[in-house]
């Protein structure tokens, strides 16, 4: 599966469009990590546990998107975009979406 933020896959041509595919995850912060992050907040700087958490969520969102594209018979996803939103206290949604295509 080729994944790209471009409109085409470099060096290949799109032969079929299969429409929008998306994957998302909603994950809550670990209570223990949240307390540590709260302490870290006093000195500021990177919250490493959250960075890791959101990275994991993003990987999973991409996996789900890829799965959906594969089911549709695609071998590439173009024009991929990500978005993150805070939907409730302590929970964030990470979404990935793109256009499933067949390239050759």
């Amino acid at each position, binding site marked *: 599966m080729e994944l*790209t*933020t471009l409109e085409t896959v*470099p060096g290949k041509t799109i032969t079929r469009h299969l429409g929008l595919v998306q994957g998302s995850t909603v994950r809550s912060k670990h209570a223990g990590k949240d307390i540590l992050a709260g302490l870290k907040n006093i000195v*500021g700087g*990177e*919250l490493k546990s959250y960075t890791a958490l959101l990275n994991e969520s*993003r990987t999973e969102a991409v996996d789900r998107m890829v799965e959906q594209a594969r089911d549709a018979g695609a071998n590439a996803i173009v024009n991929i*975009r990500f978005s993150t939103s805070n939907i409730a206290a302590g929970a964030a949604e990470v979404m990935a979406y793109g256009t499933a295509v067949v390239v050759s």
Partner: protein
Amino acid sequence: MDGIIQIVFFLVLLAIGVFAGRANERRHYRELEQAEEDLRDVAVSAGRAPDDAGMFSSGKLVVGSVVIAEDFFKRVAAGLKSLVGGNIRSYETLLERGRREAIVRMKQEARRVGATHVVNVRLETASLSEDWSGRQPMFSAEFIAYGTALTRRA
């Protein structure tokens, strides 16, 4: 008595913010400059694929992200500044650091996969500090930089 404890607590937090927070920020800027210098050979563009896209083997999605939080001093400084309005310098540096860090991490991933270019780069910011309990939590935000890494055909 309660009031005094609160004031002492506030001053301690403020002092930690001033010293630890500032030291953190200076160190982060030094690290960023170093990393950006090291990664200078990875070309990054927000535009589409270069015209000679045929020169490259197919692209690969690369992502860099970071969650960064304010310190207590930044918060107080921002609160005071917003009384008179204008640029809130303490938040400007925070957001700049977050974004530069995300870009650096994206470039590092591009280098790991052997790419020389990252094209069609998009930047995304999401605030993570909304709190439904009504109290104002410390500000933290996630920064993402992502794009398509291109590797020159051998």
